[in-house]
C-alpha cells in the first residue's frame, strides 16, 4: 500500500513518492529560472544602447542560453511538477511508476545541463531556434533530445496516474476541471515532443555527419511544430493554474463546467495549428495553408482563450458576490486580497496575458499583417507578454501556495512577497510594451547593434528614428525592474524552502529538494475517494448576469482588440504595394 499524507491546512493529498518528484521538478525549474534571469539581465543591458554591455559573440551566446533556459527548461520542469500535482494530489491517487518518473527527471536534468554546456562552450550560438543550415555542436541537439525524452516519460507517468485513479476509484464522477486542463497540456505536450523528435533527431545526425543535408524550410515548419506548440502547453497549464488558484483563494466554482471544458477541448483540436505563425513570411508555403493554420481554423483556439478570459475572473466574481461583496460592478474586485501574491500574481497574469500577449499574438499572426512585424523586436515583445507575464508569473504565484502546502515551510519575507508580483509584472509590462513599440519602427530582434557601427565604418549607413533608441532604453529599464522582481521571487522561494520555519517534522535539508517529509507524517490507510460538492440548487443565471463586472471588463478587452486589429491593417495599407 502506498504511503501518503493529507495536508492539514488544505486537505490536499500528497503521495509520498509523488511529493518528492513534484519538489525535485519544481526546484530544477527554479534553478533554470535563476540561470535564465541572470542571462536576461545581460541581454537587457546589451540591448540598452547607452550601456551596450556585452560584446557581439557573448551577446549571441547569452541570448541563446537565455531563450532555452527560460522558455524550455524552467517552464517544462515546473509543468511536470504541475502534471504530478494535478493527477496524484487532486485525484488522491498514488503516482504511477515513480521510478520511471525519476528516470524522466534525470534525463531532463542531464539534457538541460548538456545543452547549456554546449552553448557556453561557444560553438552553439544558434539561438533557441537553431535554424538549419546553421549548425550547432552535436551535444546541443542531444541535450534537447534527452530533455524531451525525459519530459515524455513525465507525460506518460501523468497519464498512467489517471488510469490508476480511474481503476482504483480514488474519485467519483469526472476528473476535476484543473486535471482536465492539465490533461489538455499533456496531450499537447506529446504532440510537441513528437514534432521535436522528428526534427531534432535528424539535426543531431546531421551534426555528426550521418545525414548530408537538412532542408531549411522543412526544418522551419517542423521545428515550429515543437517550438510554438511548447508554448501552447504553457497556455493550457497556466489556464489550469488560474482555475486552481480561483478555487483555492476564493473557493470559486467554475461558472459552467461545460463551457470551460469545451474551451480546453478547442485547445486540443486547434491550438497547435498556430505554429504557422512563424511561417507566414516564408517562401514555398501557400496562402491557403497559411490562412487556415495561422487562424487556428477560424480562430477557434482564440475563442477558447476568450472564454477562459471571461470564466476565470467571472468565477472569482461569483464567489465574491456570494460572500456579500455585491455593491456596484467592481466591489468584488476592489476588495479582493491584493496583498496575497497567490491571487495578485494570477490576476495580473490574466489581465496582461489578455491585453498585451493575446491581442498582439492574434494581430501579428494575421497573414498579411505579419509582413510588417515578422522578426522585428515586436515578436519578443509579444511573447514576453504571453510566456513571462502569462506563464512565468502564474507559476510564481502558484509557488507561494506550494511553499507551505508541498514543502511544509513558512514563507520568509512575507512583506516583500506582497510586492513581488507587482514589481515583476510592472517591469515586464514596460519591457514588453516598448519592445513592441520599437518593433513597430522596424527594429530587428536578435540583433547586437542597431546603431550599425561596423557597417557605417564600411560606408553603409542606416539610422532608426531617435524614438526607437529611446524605446530600447526603456526596454532596458523594464528588464532591470523585472530582473529585480524575479530575483526577489528566487530569494523568497529558495530562502523559504531552506530557511523557512518548519510546519511539520522534517527529514533534513534534502527534504526541500526531493526527499519526502519525516516518515511519521505519512499513513497508508486507504483514503476516502474525492467527491464533488453537492449539486448547486440555486437558479443559475436566470435572473440576469451573475458576473456583470467581469462582463464589462471582457467587453473592454474586446473593444481594445477590435480597435488595435484595424489600426494594424491601416498601417499595413501604407507600405509599398506588393503581391
Amino acid at each position, binding site marked *: 500500500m502506498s504511503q501518503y499524507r493529507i495536508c492539514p491546512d488544505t486537505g490536499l493529498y500528497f503521495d509520498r513518492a509523488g511529493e518528492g518528484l513534484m519538489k525535485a521538478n519544481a526546484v530544477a525549474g527554479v534553478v533554470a529560472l535563476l540561470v535564465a534571469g541572470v542571462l536576461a539581465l545581460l541581454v537587457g543591458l546589451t540591448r540598452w544602447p547607452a550601456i551596450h554591455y556585452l560584446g557581439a559573440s557573448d551577446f*549571441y551566446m547569452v541570448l541563446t542560453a537565455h531563450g532555452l533556459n527560460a522558455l524550455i527548461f524552467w517552464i517544462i520542469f515546473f509543468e511536470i511538477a504541475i502534471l504530478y500535482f494535478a493527477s496524484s494530489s487532486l485525484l488522491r491517487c498514488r503516482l504511477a511508476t515513480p521510478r520511471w518518473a525519476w528516470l524522466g527527471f534525470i534525463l531532463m536534468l542531464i539534457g538541460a545541463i548538456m545543452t547549456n554546456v554546449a552553448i557556453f562552450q561557444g560553438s552553439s550560438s544558434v539561438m533557441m531556434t537553431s535554424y538549419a543550415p546553421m549548425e550547432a555542436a552535436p551535444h546541443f541537439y542531444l541535450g534537447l533530445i534527452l530533455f524531451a525524452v525525459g519530459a515524455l516519460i513525465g507525460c506518460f507517468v501523468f497519464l498512467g496516474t489517471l488510469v490508476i485513479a480511474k481503476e482504483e476509484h480514488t474519485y467519483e464522477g*469526472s476528473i476535476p476541471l484543473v486535471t482536465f486542463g492539465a490533461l489538455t497540456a499533456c496531450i499537447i505536450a506529446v504532440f510537441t515532443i513528437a514534432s521535436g523528435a522528428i526534427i531534432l533527431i535528424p539535426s543531431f545526425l546531421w551534426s555528426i555527419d550521418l545525414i548530408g543535408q537538412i532542408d531549411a524550410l522543412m526544418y522551419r515548419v517542423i521545428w515550429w511544430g515543437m517550438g510554438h506548440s511548447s508554448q501552447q502547453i504553457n497556455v493550457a497549464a497556466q489556464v489550469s493554474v488560474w482555475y486552481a488558484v480561483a478555487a483555492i483563494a476564493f473557493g470559486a466554482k467554475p461558472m459552467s*463546467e461545460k463551457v470551460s471544458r469545451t474551451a480546453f477541448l478547442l485547445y486540443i483540436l486547434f491550438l497547435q495549428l498556430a505554429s504557422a505563425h512563424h511561417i507566414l513570411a516564408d517562401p514555398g508555403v501557400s496562402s491557403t495553408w497559411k490562412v487556415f493554420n495561422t487562424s487556428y481554423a477560424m480562430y477557434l483556439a482564440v475563442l477558447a482563450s476568450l472564454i477562459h478570459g471571461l470564466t476565470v475572473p*467571472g468565477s472569482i466574481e461569483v464567489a465574491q458576490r456570494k460572500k456579500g461583496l455585491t455593491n456596484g460592478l467592481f466591489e468584488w474586485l476592489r476588495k479582493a486580497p491584493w496583498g496575497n501574491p497567490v491571487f495578485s500574481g494570477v490576476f495580473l497574469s490574466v489581465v496582461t496575458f489578455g491585453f498585451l500577449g493575446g491581442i498582439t499574438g492574434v494581430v501579428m499572426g494575421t497573414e*498579411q499583417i505579419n509582413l510588417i512585424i515578422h522578426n522585428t523586436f515586436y515578436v519578443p515583445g509579444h511573447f514576453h507578454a504571453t510566456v513571462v507575464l502569462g506563464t512565468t508569473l502564474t507559476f510564481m504565484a502558484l509557488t507561494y501556495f506550494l511553499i507551505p502546502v508541498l514543502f511544509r515551510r513558512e514563507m520568509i519575507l512575507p512583506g516583500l512577497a506582497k510586492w513581488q508580483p507587482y514589481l515583476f509584472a510592472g517591469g515586464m509590462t514596460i519591457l514588453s510594451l516598448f519592445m513592441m513599440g520599437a518593433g513597430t519602427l522596424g527594429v530587428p530582434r*536578435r540583433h547586437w547593434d542597431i546603431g550599425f557601427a561596423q557597417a557605417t565604418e564600411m560606408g553603409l549607413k*542606416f539610422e532608426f528614428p531617435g524614438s526607437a533608441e529611446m524605446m530600447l532604453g526603456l526596454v532596458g529599464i523594464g528588464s532591470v525592474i523585472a530582473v529585480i522582481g524575479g530575483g526577489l521571487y528566487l530569494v523568497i522561494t529558495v530562502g523559504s524552502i531552506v530557511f523557512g520555519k518548519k510546519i511539520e517534522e522534517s527529514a533534513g535539508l534534502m527534504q526541500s529538494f526531493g526527499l519526502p517529509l519525516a516518515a511519521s507524517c505519512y499513513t497508508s490507510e486507504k483514503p476516502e475517494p474525492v467527491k464533488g460538492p453537492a449539486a448547486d440548487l440555486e437558479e443559475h443565471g436566470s435572473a440576469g448576469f451573475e458576473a456583470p463586472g467581469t462582463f464589462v471588463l471582457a467587453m473592454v478587452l474586446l473593444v481594445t482588440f477590435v480597435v488595435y486589429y484595424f489600426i494594424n491593417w491601416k498601417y499595413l495599407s501604407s507600405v509599398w504595394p506588393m503581391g
Partner: protein
Amino acid sequence: MSAILPPSEQVWWKTPVGKEEIVWIALALTWCLIMFAMMPIWHVYGKQNLSNEAYKTTPVQYEAKVKAMVEQHTIRTQSVGEMDVPVVAPPAGSDVYILGRLWSWYPMLEFKKGESYRLHLSSLDWQHGFSLQPININLQIVPEYETVITITPDTSGEFTIVCNEYCGILHHTMLGKIYVTE
C-alpha cells in the same frame, strides 16, 4: 474549491450555462469569424499580399541569375569597405534579383517610383531576414528557395535592407540598399 474537485454533476456537459457566457461566446465567435474573413478579403481587395510564387533553386543557379542581371544593368558602383558593390537599375517590370549571404545583400538596386518589379530573393548560405527599412516590409529568406514578389515602390529615396534573421557573428553588419528615384 470545485475547480480542483470533481464536478457536482456526474456528466459535465449537462451543466447549465450562464447568460453572460452565452452572450460572450456569441460575441467572441462573431469577432473570430470577422478576423478569419479579413485575410481572404485582403487577398482580393488589399494591395499588400505575399505572392505564392516560389521555386526550388541552388546557390549556384541563383548566383548565376544575379550575375546575369548585374552584368546587363549596372549603372554605377558604391564602395563598401574595400569592395565596389554594383548598383543595378533594371527596366521597369523586369525580373530583379537580390541575394543574401554572410554578411551582405548583393547587389544594390535602383527602382523608379510607381513602377513594378518582380523581385527575386534567396540566400547562398544560411537563412536571412529581408527587412526593408524604414518602409518595414519583412520577409524570410530561406536557402535553396527562391521567392518572387511583385513590388511597387510608391515612395522615393534611399531604403535599407537590414538582416533580421540571426545569421552568425557579423549578423548586425549585414545591410543592403535599394534606391528609388522619382
